[in-house]
């Protein structure tokens, strides 16, 4: 056996490069620095965008087993189940068409009334249909990846909804894909309005990780009941007003707390959602706030803010 074919090259005596400990210190410091840039200063988006572009072919490859299995499942679906599903869809379409015809009339009426009261007309927010490619792998957060990115016109902080209600908000936009945080994520919050009472509040993702929302900071004696529907209030300038968000399922009032603990079930399919609609943030149509210099100049000149 010739010697060259053996894995027996002796390690170099002198040219060993940096020691493992030095390398460890260098790269660990670099990654901690990166984490700081990511969390504190949000500086890493260009790096993320570039790497995500590089990863796109691999991600496409990883999606293929699912695509094939879904294709096979659709191929082998029996006639009865597809007929049942069609029936259900027809029923839903019937009720929706009734609603739609009423909505047209209501819109007209609303516009006339708003004209009468000289209120600002509500704008219809432009929207974009998108598909959820996959759930983000990070087990600590609830995020999904959408198949549309900045080249398709997705804007940062756009609301994301399915046919039932709001499911999340776009939190990062890459060139080809974008990342939406679901409303059940612990760090996500959404301003809501109780449809029955008109009381406003803010709903947060449930902190223990269950796929629920928690309506925080509602007084223990607030008028709220189970099955109350919460919809977006529109005060944030991001979500269009009046889109359903969640339904109250459980209210715990304890004597030792000023606030009631109110758990809500999201109405949109926050888990396992496939087809979504990405709306443009409402606030984009509003006039911009004046620059700080302008405000300072105004204050100096004696104008009241």
């Amino acid at each position, binding site marked *: 056996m010739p010697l060259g*074919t053996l894995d*027996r090259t002796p390690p170099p005596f002198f040219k060993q490069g940096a020691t493992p400990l030095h390398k460890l210190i260098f790269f660990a410091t670099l990654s901690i620095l990166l984490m700081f*840039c990511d969390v504190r200063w949000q500086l890493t988006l260009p790096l993320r965008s570039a790497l995500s572009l590089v990863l796109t072919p691999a991600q496409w490859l*990883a999606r293929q087993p699912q695509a094939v299995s879904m294709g096979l499942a659709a191929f082998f679906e029996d006639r009865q189940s597809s007929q049942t599903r069609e029936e259900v869809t027809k029923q839903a379409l019937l009720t929706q068409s009734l609603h739609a015809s009423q909505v047209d009339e209501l819109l007209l009426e609303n516009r006339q009334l708003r004209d009468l009261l000289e209120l600002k007309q509500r704008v219809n927010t432009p929207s974009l249909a998108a598909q959820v490619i*996959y759930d983000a*792998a990070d087990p600590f957060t609830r995020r999904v*990846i959408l198949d549309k990115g900045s080249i398709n016109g997705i804007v940062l902080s756009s609301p994301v909804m399915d046919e039932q209600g709001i499911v999340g908000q776009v939190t990062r936009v890459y060139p080809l894909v974008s990342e939406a945080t679901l409303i059940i994520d*612990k760090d996500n919050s959404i301003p809501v309005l109780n449809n029955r009472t008109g009381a406003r509040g803010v709903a947060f993702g449930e902190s*223990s990780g269950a796929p629920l929302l928690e309506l925080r900071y509602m007084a223990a004696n607030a008028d709220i009941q189970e099955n109350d529907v919460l919809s977006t209030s529109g005060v944030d300038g991001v979500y269009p007003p009046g889109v359903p968000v969640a339904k109250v399922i459980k209210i715990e009032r304890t004597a030792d707390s000023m606030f009631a603990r109110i758990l809500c079930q999201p109405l949109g399919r926050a888990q396992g959602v496939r087809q979504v609609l990405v709306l443009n943030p409402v606030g984009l149509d509003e006039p911009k706030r004046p620059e700080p210099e302008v405000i300072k100049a105004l204050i100096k000149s004696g104008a009241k803010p």
Partner: protein
Amino acid sequence: MIMPRGQQLLLPANPFFIAFSLLLALVLNMIENVSLLGNAAWRPDFLALVLLFWSIHQPQKISIGWAFVLGLICDVHEVSLLGQHALAYTVLAFFATLIHRRLLWFSVPSQALQVLPLLVASHAISMVLRMSLGTSLVGWPMLFAPFLEAMLWPVMSVVLLAPQRRAPDPDENRPL
């Protein structure tokens, strides 16, 4: 590298095969996430395992620098904190270089037992980093991941060393 007695002599490792196996592990991780399991916390991390394997078997070729780069790529795919996997993999590769001279003298099941603490440490780093940022625990399923990975170690040793176990002079009787 000195090897224990009675063990088969290995061919030199092909750098292209190493790169291919790392890429395949990354794609396997993605398939696991995208097509099979979603964001379940107990998913075994193939990339960490293959990285650990090569940094033990070929520390001259794959070491801490590559671990860092692959960690960054993993972070971008998983949309976790940028640098979280990079730090975890860096530490993993560092400990791998510390034990690589000793580990190969043991039998493969015993090796699996000895890499288990390293894999646990790598997962623990991710968890501690996220908890320091105020994320709640994802629960006990997360404990499964390092054990599953350690159980995959013998499989890895067979699959990844297979090209090096081929005959040095293939003839008609031994085509591979």
